[in-house]
């Protein structure tokens, strides 16, 4: 499996402090992969998965069930109902764009779909953050215990 080889290569290459950044990046990638896999049904998770695989050098096609979702930005903003002000509309549009960039796969989504995916993505991110934080705490604690124990 490509993944296995890549992973092995990554792991074997990192040693010492130079590898810290690299390692953290891999950890992050693993975290993201887990994130992507954990919510398979979501557009953003598929897009994230694709992105990660692309970074790893593998190409994989994935069919997304989103149809008729892509809208031009102007129409998206129009849909937002911000018709009161030109400036407002521009502002909102800029933010929608920023959100689209943040959420994996958001560029192709309509505004309402984007919000859906954002909500799901936020939830997944929250779960991931808590998981990683718990893991870090755990390891911290164990490290401390180990030191205390003299192990």
């Amino acid at each position: 499996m490509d993944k296995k080889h890549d992973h092995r290569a990554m792991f074997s290459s990192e040693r010492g402090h130079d590898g810290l950044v690299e390692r953290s990046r891999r950890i992050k990638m693993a975290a993201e992969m887990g994130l992507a896999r954990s919510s398979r049904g979501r557009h953003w998770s598929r897009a994230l998965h694709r992105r990660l695989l692309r970074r790893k050098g593998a190409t994989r096609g994935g069919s997304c069930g989103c149809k008729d979702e892509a809208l031009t930005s102007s129409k998206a903003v129009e849909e937002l109902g911000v018709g009161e002000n030109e400036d407002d509309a521009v502002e909102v549009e800029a933010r929608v764009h920023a959100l689209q960039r943040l959420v994996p796969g958001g560029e192709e989504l309509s505004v309402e779909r984007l919000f859906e995916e954002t909500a799901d993505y936020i939830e997944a991110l929250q779960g991931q953050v808590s998981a990683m934080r718990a893991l870090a705490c755990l390891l911290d604690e164990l490290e401390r215990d180990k030191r205390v124990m003299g192990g």
Partner: protein
Amino acid sequence: MEKERFLSVDCKSRDMNSGAVADQLPRPFLDLSWEQPVHHGAQFESAISSLVSSPSSNPSAGNGSVVVRELIGRLGSICDSGEISQASCYRTPLDSPPKLTLPVLGHLQQGGGGLPMPGNEMADGQFTPFAANPGFTERAARSSCFGTWSYGGLGDQSGLPEAGNLSRVPRSHSLKSAGALRMGVLDSGKDASKSNPERIEMEMRSKLGGGMPPSSTSGRTMAGGAANNVSRRKAASKGRGKEAPLSCSNHLGLQAAEDEHPDVKRCKSAKNNGADKDSVVKQETEQNIGASQKKGKENNAKPPEPPKDYIHVRARRGQATDSHSLAERVRREKISKRMKLLQDLVPGCNKITGKAMMLDEIINYVQSLQRQVEFLSMKLATMNPQLDFDLETLLQESMHQEHEPLPQQLYPLEGTSAAFSYAQRPQGSPLQSAITNGLGVGQQPLCPFDGLADATSQLGNFWESDLQYVVHMGFGQSQGAEFFSQSLHAE
């Protein structure tokens, strides 16, 4: 007039096979006696109560009657609350060109959420007395300009502009139900014994065949249009769901409300070409009546079809009601609903109002979460700089496990590198993969410390490295436990 619009706009026919129910409804409406077209809240409610009682007498309504009863009950409750505004709104129609102000609708929207038909039925209940009113046909014609009717001979065009404003979102079913109801109502106005659509249609046919004084022309045109609509509706429900083709409806304005866009144009074109189209209407009606008669019975027997692929929207008071703005409003509502969802997710967003600010907050939150992930991964990387375990074996083992390991192997492997490094001797691969699996489960909120306690008590000193099983138990309580036991046995 408000009620008529109410009827036309408010119909969400998903609950009922409008034909089946509508046909039954006109009968009880005859009992209502209206002194004047202006209806105050009290009369409104009396209509509602009669409506409520009426469906029970209509056995053939079947499903529809139950729904109607329920809806009307709801409507009644709403009417109670919205009586005042209703009265006021109903006072206006005769005086001024009735605008599409739907306070009742607004109330319904607030109170009932989905009160599709009650407005329909209720309004129809008041249509009957209108029939006696000479201006009724005129007003009915006006109100029915949501694309269903042609206005042959309608001299008064004042109603049409705002009728053009009528919400066109009510789709085929609602429209056709309205049409059917109107048809029934018109007939009942003249002949109180109509009880099924076929007879009504035949009556209309005969009427159409006869002479047509200007006022009744519009009425009959409407009736023809109604018959058209009814037939169309039946054809639609029978054949293609809501997409019944209305070949000649475009220029006649007899569209069955499947299309939102042409509605306004049809309305206006109908207004302009009404006189010419009467004959065409007649022809159409006659053509369709035969077909509709056959289909009518089948239609009545059919269960109500939920128009899932249609979005029914009510026009709110003081808002534009052309199709474009309505669709936009639907989308906007969806979007604002989703924004509320996001608001709940993002902490501290409750006080913030305004789309731009909300979006700002959301973006900040997502960015902060992503940064946290990055930071935590960096922190995890620092936790143990050394790795001395056999990754390949680990991966192989995880692949041999159930499918779950595979997706998660990367994450937990990275995360548990620290854990593995603590091992004095390489543990059995199954165990490691068990840990892997266990850690990989950690997408949900975890209680590692609880797991720690359990693990410690249960496993004791089985593991050479406390860390490993602790981490395992902590993160993969349910799933990890399985693998853990598996790996234990494997060893």
